[in-house]
């Protein structure tokens, strides 16, 4: 029992620290990223390693169950490693236990019956980018709204601070 209480306390403390740190530095546009290389290698090879906090857990579960037909690609990489990545995604999802204020806002903006697969299609994404001119998305070095790292230079670290945005010509 005491052990459970301590664990809960630790989780709470860690959660608070996570939520407080980025908020103090900037508007909280930072997401926790999975530790280690696994996520970056398996989910960052074809595109930005999207921060798990950009979608709710149910979106990631659906995606991980359909990896063989992932936006027209075979993104599978072996059942065991896929299970590990699923755990990482769920842990840090927008509605996960370690969600910060921004992540909770994202989770709250998605209807409970939906499990969106595109971050770039969420109301949150559209709201954050309504001042970006349409023509920008079509520039060769950007190409699609889902190419976060083209403009958010530190997206693979989960950082989307406005001051770190650099839009390629």
């Amino acid at each position, binding site marked *: 029992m005491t052990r459970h209480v301590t664990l809960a306390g630790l989780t709470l403390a860690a959660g608070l620290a996570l939520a407080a740190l980025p908020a103090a530095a900037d508007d909280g546009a930072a997401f926790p990223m999975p530790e280690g290389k696994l996520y970056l290698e398996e989910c960052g090879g074809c595109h930005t390693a999207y921060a798990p906090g950009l979608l709710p857990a149910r979106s990631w579960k659906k995606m991980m169950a359909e990896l063989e037909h992932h936006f027209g690609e075979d993104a599978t990489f072996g059942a065991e490693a896929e299970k590990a990545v699923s755990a990482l995604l769920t842990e840090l999802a927008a509605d996960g236990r370690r969600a910060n204020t921004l992540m909770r806002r994202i989770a709250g903006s998605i209807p409970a019956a939906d499990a969106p697969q595109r971050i770039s299609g969420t109301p949150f994404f559209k709201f954050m980018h309504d001042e970006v001119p349409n023509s920008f998305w079509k520039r060769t070095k950007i190409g699609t709204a*889902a190419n976060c790292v083209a403009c958010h230079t530190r997206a693979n670290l989960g950082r989307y601070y406005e001051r770190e945005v650099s839009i390629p010509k």
Partner: protein
Amino acid sequence: MKISILAMTLALAYSGLTSAATPQQILAELNAKAGGSSVARGEKLYRGQFGGEIKSCMGCHTEDARASGRHVKTHKAIEPLAPVANKERFTDMAKVEKWFRRNCKEVLARECTAQEKADFTAYMLSLK
């Protein structure tokens, strides 16, 4: 907390599974399976136009495998494929096999044969 430790342990376990090799060792292993390889056939595979969703390896890896490429669908920059320009290439058999499987399906609409994989790798290693 408990879950995060579990996830970390799993993540570490899997990154530990990938074993480092030299490109020469990778080629030797592929050669052994295919019974030899040809640089010229490998270059034909690299430059050829096929019937998959994306017509050629050059679609993402460009005309020069020593140059940086760009993913045709996601527009993400791709580091050079030739080991002479990128020392991390062809150093992990599991990674090499994974990308052959995906990219051959994408371009040839089928998996590559052991012969094609050995030829392609021989061509990549021949680039100076």
